[in-house]
């Protein structure tokens, strides 16, 4: 299952063979870190856009 999991997350599926708990955690963490990083970027950009929209609306 971990093979599918790593594949789904775009990670290294080699890790799915002969896994230990540490390896499993590392794969999950890696995938989650990728998603978290993108989510943070999205949140930041959403805030920037909101601020620019407010400013634009005030000046119309």
């Amino acid at each position, binding site marked *: 299952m971990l093979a599918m999991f790593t594949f789904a997350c775009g990670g290294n599926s080699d890790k799915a063979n002969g896994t230990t*708990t540490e390896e499993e955690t590392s794969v999950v963490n890696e995938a989650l870190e990728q998603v978290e990083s993108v989510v943070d970027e*999205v949140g930041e950009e*959403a805030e920037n856009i909101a601020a620019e929209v407010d400013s634009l609306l005030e000046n119309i």
Partner: protein
Amino acid sequence: MVISLCCFGTEVNAQQKKGKEKANKEQVEKEIKKGEQKIEKEMKQGEEAVKADLDKEKEKAEEGMEKGKEHAKEMEKKGEQEMKHSEAKMKEMEKKGEEEVKKGEEKAEEMVEKAEGKGNAYGKNKGEMEGKEFGQARAASAKEAQERMMKSEQKMKEAEGKMDESKMKLDEAKKKLEMRKEAKEITEEEYQQKMKAVEDLENRTRQLEEKKMESEKKLDKIREAATMDEEGEE
């Protein structure tokens, strides 16, 4: 007597003069001949010198040609050697490539064997952990991952809310712009300029929505895989 003496004297003088002239002529002729001989000699010497120079040059040219031929032969030999070397290198690389392919095939076979023969590899290799300890560690990891996923979801919802709000405000901005243009409160230029700013922000929002959707899909896949694992373990 006197007269005859005079006549005789004159004759002698004339004869002497003639003799002198003849001697002079002979001398001049001799000089000319000498000069001619000298010129001839110098010409001959000159010809010989030119011939010697030409011979030398010819020798030099032949030597150069010989050297050139030798160089060409050397280069040819060198080229052949390099070709042989390249061929050997290519063969070596080919061999290496075949070895790599073989290795890859072996590894793939090994992986298939592992996957087919041993079934789910999850939890097979527990290292030095005991069953209970291993289970606890796995549960802790799963819980942590779950929490992180929830946090990411929460952040995405917040971002979504902000994006929806921005979209509404942008619609409002567009309507306001239209009204102000119709009421001639702003110039055409101002209208175009502000409308462009609105459209730019709309585009950025759209791109951000796509990015958010991609993250959601990834998160769903992670969750799905994790859920299936938990079910498999049960």
